[in-house]
Structures are given as C-alpha cells and as structure tokens.
C-alpha cells in the first residue's frame, strides 16, 4: 500500500496493485505460490492448469528446496519451457518474490509443522496449504491459533488442497489435465464447495460440473480431527463472495464441525442455498467403534453420527438428500431453481487451450514415434537383468563363458566356440605386458611419475599404440591374408615385398631368432595347430618364415604376427570371409592388443604409485644438444 496525502484531506490509502483481493478471496488469476519441497509433478500440474485457465503468469513463483541449493528448474508452461527459481531458504524466496502470498507445503509429517510455523512468520504469506497426513494434532492446533491471530488461512493438513476454477490450483487437486477440463475447472462457475475428503474431490467436482454451471471454488479441509480451517470457515467465505450463488458441502461422521454449520444456518450467517450430505451413515451397521479412513472419522457420541448430523442440518434449512445417491439430483434441482429465479445466468463455454501431451505419456500410449538418435545392438540394461547380446549376465556365469565368451558376445555378437574364446583369453594374457621399457609402458611410467591419475597415465601409454608399436597385430593379419587370398606362394609374397621395399608386418624380432625362439609364439602355434579347425593362414605364415629366416635368423614370425594371423584364421572359421575381413578392418585385432596391454599399463601405473616414484626428468647427458 502507498500512502498519499492530498492537501486538505486525510491521508488515504490506495491499493498498490490492481490485483488486491478482498479478504474473503484466497486466490485470484494473479496469485502466485511457493511450492515447499521439490514436487516436480505437482508443480507441472499446477502450471498445466494455469495454461488451460488462460493465466498470463505461472502460479508457482518459486520452489523451496530445503535439502537442495539455490538454482533454477525447468518446466513447461503450455508449449514453451520456463525456468522456475529454487531456493534453499524460504526467507530468501520471500525477499525475492514479495508478491507471493500462498505456500503449498509438501513437507513430510515430520517437518510439516516446523515449516508451516516458519511460513506463518513470513508476513506476505496469507494462505498455507499443508498436504502431509499424520501431523500431530497438538502441532496443528498450535498453528491454527497462530494463523487465526495473524489473520491467515491454513488449509489441511492431510489434504490434496483445493482449486479456484480458472484461477489457481493447489498442488495435485483435480487430477489429470483431461479431468480438469472435463470437470470444467478451467473456468469459473457459481458453486462454492467444501469437503473433508481430498480423495473424493474429483468425484464431487465432476458431479458439480454435470449438474450446474460449474465450480467457483472447492476446498478439501483434510481428514484430521482438528483441521487448520473448518468446513464452516470456507462456507462463510463463500457466503461473502458475490459470484458464488450456491454452496455444496460434504461432511463426515465424527467431530462437531457440522454443528457449527447448523448454528450458522440458524443464525442466518449462511443464507445462500446449501446442499449438504454427511457421510458415514453406515456406522450403525458396525458392532464396535470403527475408525474409517480419516483420523477424524470416528464416532465418540450419538451426536457425532452422520444420521444425527444430517437430521440437524435438514432441520436448520440445508438441502439434505435422503442418501448420497440423490446428492447430484439435489444439486441439480437447486441450481435450476437459481437459474429460473434469474440468480444464475449460464455463460457460454470459453475455448480451452490445448496442452500438448507429454512425450513420455504419448509414447506409453503408442500414439507417436520418433527416430532414435542412437542405436545399440550389443547389450541392454533396461530389463530385469543385464543382457550381453541375447545372453543374460546370470547365464554368462552359469555357463562359465569367461572373458573370451563375454568379448565374443560384445565384439562379434555371437558366442564363439570354446576353442576360440580360449584363444582370445590366451591372446589377452600374452599381450598383457612386455616389460617397462617398451614405449607404452614407458609413457605410462613417466606420466604416473608426473603425478597423473590412472586414466591419464594409462591413456598416455595407450596413445603410443600404432603402426610402430603394437600395430603389427593388425598389419600382419591384413598383409598375410591379402597375399594368401591372391594365391601368392610364400616365395612370391616375400619377393613382392622385397621388390616394393616394404617390411613384412609380423616378421622379425630384436633379439629372438630361429635358434632362440620366442616362447609366446611357440605357445600360440602349438595351440592353433592343435585346436583350430582351419589354420591355413598361420600355416602360410610359417612357410613365409622359413624363407625369411634363411636370409637372417631373427626374421622370425613374431608374437604380433602370430596372434594377428591366428586370429584371422579363427574369424574365417566362424563367420563369412566378408565378415571376418570387416572385423579386421574395423580394428578388432588392434583392440585385442589394446585390451591386453591395458592390463600391463595399469600394472605399471600402480607399481610406480606404490613405489612412490618422484617426477622423472630425463638426464641432460642422455640428450645430444645440437642447436647449430
């Protein structure tokens, strides 16, 4: 409010904003709320309601996220996306959003009282809805008194909240957006409704929509024994609201709130037609005391029964049906009388903006499709169990498929036979390491000693793998299989390579020779010739080796060559020639070396760390400085 003093007049106060509400209205089309606790679905549902109601601004100004940190959260407002601020502290949110006067408190029953207490202390917050069920009665009583003293309104606890048609919706009230539109909650009607039950409110709103021009406002006060606001509190508000022409109320057995309504009817504090029914007339069918669903729904004395309450209301002038069965009809009769009397003039239906369906829902219902951005054909983590191809992880262990089996499933999309998976494991074991001096291990060691982490250090070593280091596995397989496929004799192959001046990949070793064989190669050769169905490429390579070793005795088939060529033999036995060639071209053999050697590189990293080796600096005397 601003105060302006005009000469000669008393200072007078003027509403600062045009949206100033009369005190009996809790919400209007500009009302904004804080949602306490990060309730993503409830918040989105409020925004969807806002959109179909034609609100210009979202009804949620900010989310209070006491266990999170300040930030922004993304939501839809109709078709576009908006950002809603999140605050850890209510105080901060209030300072940032001085126009907010409603808080929807989704705190748990443990903390609902404390957070509501805090909200009551924030002067700008006038209405607080408490959703939690199970707030201790003494806490609610204390909060109720405090709210009353401060001229504020509590709705709840133990409620879904309420809705002012076309204006403002508390949390999850009204159900899905389809239901909101079907129950005509997106535009105002003439009925003021209040009930205890929140669960039944959808049913009641629909009944009201079917039998009248619709709801003006509906509040569910919650099922507790001592709710923060009573049925009567809201009926008295509706009595004052000019747009509300008739009242509908659903009471419940237990407690005495309905007798306050009886008194108000007798005292003519309620003059608008009131259609009311008190549920729980069945309690007389029970032999012992029954606690129905709501905490307050329990009969302590004859007066608390539904029958006694219904009778008292009827006597006081409320329109009380004979059973719930006629509730809708009584509402309709009352409405039609008001139309006839000219009190209500039915309005034309406004157009309803369409809210696009949520993608997830549309997918679930199978009514849209979209091309996927990614495809994967080797594994699936979505079901009951992780799948490698069509084999479940438990089957991998039941059948003892081993590392070779897993690799064959994930790399070649098939379970290779045991001889092959065993060979894969042998290849990994043989390539696992080759001492600290080779370039990969060396780089890893240097990086580790520079204080780098495992991934960086291993990658540093890994990056040396290529044409000169480790790449021969791939190269040999390609070179030998190409020559073999062209039908070149071993001699013709050696000659051609010599003529081109190209070293044959996979041939030659720095120290090993025909007289001092590499045990790794012997192991592979023995295994392949013994277990492989076809080993024609390796046989071809052995013939080539016979020729090259006549030239120099260290021009032997080396370990890279043996693994690569034997691998090509294996692939050719288990799949078509084209497929086998494709895997070699895709780099599968290179991968085999990388996989094996990563074991060793990690070993070197761990070794250096364990030994607490300091930064390595290459000695000057080992570098020939030749600047000229």
């Amino acid at each position, binding site marked *: 409010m601003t105060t302006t003093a005009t000469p000669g007049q008393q200072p007078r106060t003027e509403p600062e904003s045009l949206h100033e509400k009369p005190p009996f209205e809790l919400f209007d089309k500009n009302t904004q709320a804080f949602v306490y606790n990060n309730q993503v679905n409830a918040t989105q549902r409020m925004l969807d309601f806002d959109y179909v109601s034609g609100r210009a601004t979202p009804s949620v100004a900010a989310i209070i996220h006491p266990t999170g940190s300040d930030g922004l959260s993304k939501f839809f407002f109709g078709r576009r996306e908006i950002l809603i601020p999140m605050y850890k502290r209510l105080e901060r949110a209030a300072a940032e959003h001085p126009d907010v006067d409603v808080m929807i408190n989704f705190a748990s*029953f*443990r903390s609902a009282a404390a957070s509501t207490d805090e909200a009551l202390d924030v002067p700008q917050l006038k209405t607080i809805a408490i959703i939690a*069920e*199970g*707030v*201790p*009665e*003494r806490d609610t*009583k*204390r909060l*109720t*008194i405090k709210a009353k003293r401060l001229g504020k309104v509590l709705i709840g606890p133990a409620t*879904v909240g309420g809705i002012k048609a076309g204006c403002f919706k508390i949390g*999850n009230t*009204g*159900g*899905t957006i389809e*239901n909101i539109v*079907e129950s005509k909650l997106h535009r105002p009607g003439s009925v003021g409704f209040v009930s*205890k*039950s929140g*669960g*039944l409110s*959808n*049913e009641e709103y*629909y*009944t009201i929509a*079917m039998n009248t021009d619709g709801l003006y406002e509906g509040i569910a006060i919650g*099922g507790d*024994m*001592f709710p923060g606001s009573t049925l009567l509190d809201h009926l008295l508000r509706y009595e004052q609201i000019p747009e509300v022409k008739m009242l509908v109320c659903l009471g*419940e057995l237990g407690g005495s709130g309905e007798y306050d309504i009886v008194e108000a009817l007798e005292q003519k504090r309620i003059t608008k037609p009131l259609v009311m029914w008190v*549920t*729980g*007339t*069945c309690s*007389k*069918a*029970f*032999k*012992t*005391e*029954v*606690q*129905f*669903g*709501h*905490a*307050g*729904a*329990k009969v302590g004395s004859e007066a608390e029964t*539904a029958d006694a309450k219904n009778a008292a209301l009827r006597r006081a002038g409320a329109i009380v049906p*004979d*059973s*719930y*069965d006629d*509730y*809708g009809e009584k509402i309709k009769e009352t409405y039609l009388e008001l139309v006839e009397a000219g009190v209500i003039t039915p309005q034309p239906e406004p157009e309803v903006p369409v809210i696009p369906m949520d993608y997830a829902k549309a997918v679930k219902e199978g009514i849209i499709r979209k091309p996927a951005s990614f495809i994967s054909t080797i594994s699936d983590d979505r079901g009951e169990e992780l799948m490698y191809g069509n084999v479940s992880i438990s089957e991998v262990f039941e059948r003892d498929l081993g590392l070779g089996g897993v690799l064959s499933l994930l790399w070649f999309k098939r379970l290779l036979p045991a001889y092959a998976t065993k060979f894969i494991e042998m290849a990994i074991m043989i390539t696992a390491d080759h001492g600290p001096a080779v370039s990969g291990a060396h780089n890893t060691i240097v990086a580790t000693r520079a204080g780098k982490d495992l991934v960086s250090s291993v990658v540093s070593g890994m990056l040396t793998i290529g044409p000169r280091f480790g790449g021969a596995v791939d190269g040999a397989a390609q070179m030998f299989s190409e020559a073999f496929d062209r039908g070149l004799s071993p001699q013709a192959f050696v000659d051609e390579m010599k003529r081109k001046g190209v070293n044959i990949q996979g041939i030659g070793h720095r120290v090993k020779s025909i007289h001092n064989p590499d045990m790794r190669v012997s192991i592979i050769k023995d295994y392949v010739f013994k277990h492989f169905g076809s080993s024609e490429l390796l046989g071809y390579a052995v013939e080539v080796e016979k020729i090259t070793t006549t030239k120099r005795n260290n021009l032997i088939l080396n370990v890279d060559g043996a693994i690569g060529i034997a691998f090509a033999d294996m692939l050719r036995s288990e799949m078509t020639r084209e497929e086998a060639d494709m895997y070699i071209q895709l780099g599968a053999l290179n991968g085999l070396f990388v996989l094996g050697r990563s074991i060793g590189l990690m070993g070197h990293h761990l070794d250096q760390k364990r030994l607490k080796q300091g930064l390595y600096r290459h000695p000057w005397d080992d570098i020939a400085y030749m600047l000229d």
Partner: protein
Amino acid sequence: MAQKAIREADGMRMLARLLGEYSDGRYVVDDKFVSVGPDTNVAALPEQHPWLVEERLVVKPDQLIKRRGKNDLILVDVPFDKAKAWIEAKTKAPITIHGAFDEAGTPLDEGTFGRLTNFLIEPLVKHDPSDECYVAMVSTRDGDEILFHHRGGVDVGDVESKALRLHVPVGQAPSPQEIESALLREVPPGKRAHLAGFIEALFKFYVDLHYAFLEINPLVVTKDAVIPLDLAARLDSTAEFAVGKRWGKVEFTAPFGSSPTKEEAFIEELDAKTGASLKLTVINPEGRVWTMVAGGGASVIFADTITDLGFMDELANYGEYSGDPSEEFTYLYARTILDLMTRSKHPKGKILLIGGGIANFTDVANTFKGIIRALREYKVPLQDGRVKIYVRRGGPNYREGLRMMRELGHEIGVPIEVYGPETHMTKIVSMALKGGM
C-alpha cells in the same frame, strides 16, 4: 494415524515413570501392578512379584472396557488364589459387555460379545470412598478441557453434566490457583493445594506427551497423597515420531469385542507391508452385498448408500483399497473377499460392488489387473453362487479398465455391469439392489 486408545497398564506405567519429571519430584505414582496377557502363566507370577501373595488384591480386565464396575468386572479385596481363579473363569468363554445401564443397573443396549484376554492385578489401596474423585482431560479444537468432579468411582454417573470444567487455551497451562478456583470448589480446603499441584503436573504430562484424552477415576485424594486407581487414555499416534521414545512400550489395541477374523487379520498384515491402504471389516459374513471400493471416502459412501437404501442387513463387509497398491496386493485383497463371499450361497444370488470415484492419478486399468486375476481364478464359485458384479470407476485410463472388465464378464461367464464417471458414483448400488434379482 489418529487418536488411539492405550491399555490402562501402559498409561499407568508411563505416569509412574514420568509424572515426577513434570512435578519436580513432588508427586510419585507407584507402578506396583502386574499385567496379565493371554500367554501369562498366572500361577508363576508371585515368584517375581512376592507382594501378590502378601497383600489383598484388586483384579480387572485391561481391554478398553467402559463401565467395568457396572458390568461386574472388578474384583476387589481378594487373596491371590481367588484372583487367579477369577481370571481363569473369566477367560474360559466369551462374554457380553454392556455400554449403558439405567438407574437400576439394567443394561440399555444389546452389548458387545467378545473374549477377555488381558487383566491388571494391583494391590488393594484401602481408602475411604469419600476420598474418591474424578478428573479427565480432553483435547478440543481450541485447546484442552479439564473436567473434575469431587465424587468419583464406579458410581460417578453422568460426568458430562456434573463435572466442573476448566478450558485451557492452546499453548497455555493453568496455574494451581486457577485449578483450585475453577475445579476444586467442592473439595475440602485441606486437600485443595495438594490436589491442584497434582492436576497441574498431570496436565503438563498430558500435553507434552501428546495425549488426546486422559481420565482417572477414581483418583483417591487424602490429606497427604494422591493415588490414581484407574486410568483410561488415548494418545495421538501421529506424534510417535516426536515422543514415541518417551512413551516407551505402548500398545494401540483394538477395543473389546473387535478381535479381527483370520481374513481381517490377513488384510491388516498386507496393509502393514505396503505404503498403500487395504482395509477389510466383515460386518455380516452371510450378507448378500459385498463391496470392494477404491478410496477411503468413496468406500464409506458405498456402505452408506447400501444402508440408506434399506439394505443394512444385507451389507456383508466394509472394504477399501487406495494409494495405488501393486497388482499382487490388489489380487490378494480381491481373492480374500471373493473367497469369503463364495463360501455360502444365497437363494437370491450375491452382489459384488467394485466401486470407486474418479481417481486423481492412479491408472485405473492397472489397478483392475489384480482384481481381474482374482475374478478369473474364482470363475466357477462365482458362477455357482450366482454372483452379479457391478463396476463403477473413473480417472486416468478408466476406459481401458472398464473395457477389460466388460470383456472379462464375457470370458468367465459371470454377469459384470460396467459404468464410468458419467454414471453417478453410487447409482450401481440402487441398480444392484433395487433392480431385483
């Protein structure tokens, strides 16, 4: 999740343990008594509590029974062997207990039938009947009310009209002076200050421990002692998270006569295992009309409508499922009801109402899956028992749910009539009951 009654023994124990704290040690309540449950070996009790055989005793049931005196359920001034024999006699067979009596002591109601299982044995406190008075505290919307009457005991009569009252607004506590002037006018002056101090402490105890109701009758007040002889109380069970540790071991027990049937106990067990809600009360196992209704509010309204349309005697059960129970739980729940309702046949056939309002967010088709599974399983008994089923429900995906139900009817050869939100919620009740069968 509400105000719940506790046993006298639990209340007395709490009072004995904690009243001192609320009165700076000025008032001490003795917890010299023994609880007897269904598994207690009464004969062996004196080993641990030698006073049982050394003193004269009082025995009474501890099962939330009102008017124990009028029902002749308090045995006073007996030795242990008499007490033991009395308990044996009382537990042998179920008995009927009345809640209201006229001046002459004639029962005014048909009474509640049930079994006595729990008792209290306490030492006889010799006192002058004129020292007995009545005190109660009850939680009201705007605070608490303390009721006091200078006469107490079994013949206290209508305290509602006789007692003096002191209203205590929320957040306040009465001073001993306020208590004295408002409540203790009729008490001999020599006892007033002492008694006021006791009530002051008792009120603090009651508020701080989230009692919703606390009644002590009789409260024996002499010049130098205040002794509570009998106690009834309700705690606000929602406060358990805050003061449950202070309460100690407390049992929220069902009132006398409402011990659950096997099926009810099974549903209670299911209910405890899930965050959802499953409730079953069998009202009349021979009843013709069975209900299985989604939602706490709707389930009451269905039972109401059956009653209001004049079919209360035919109402077999009160049943409710809500909070989105899993398919398995819904199946087990439905199965229990189908089993109960097909145990016997009715010449006019039976009716099952699968009702509900318009759901907020629960997928209706999903919740129907468990029910459908159970109906399929009970195909033959349902046919044999000439059961007719009426379904009414709305909410997310309700069309699919209703379609499934309709198809099921054809599949299992059981008449199933299916209605959506356009039909008033309880119309299926009148259709089923008044449509004639």
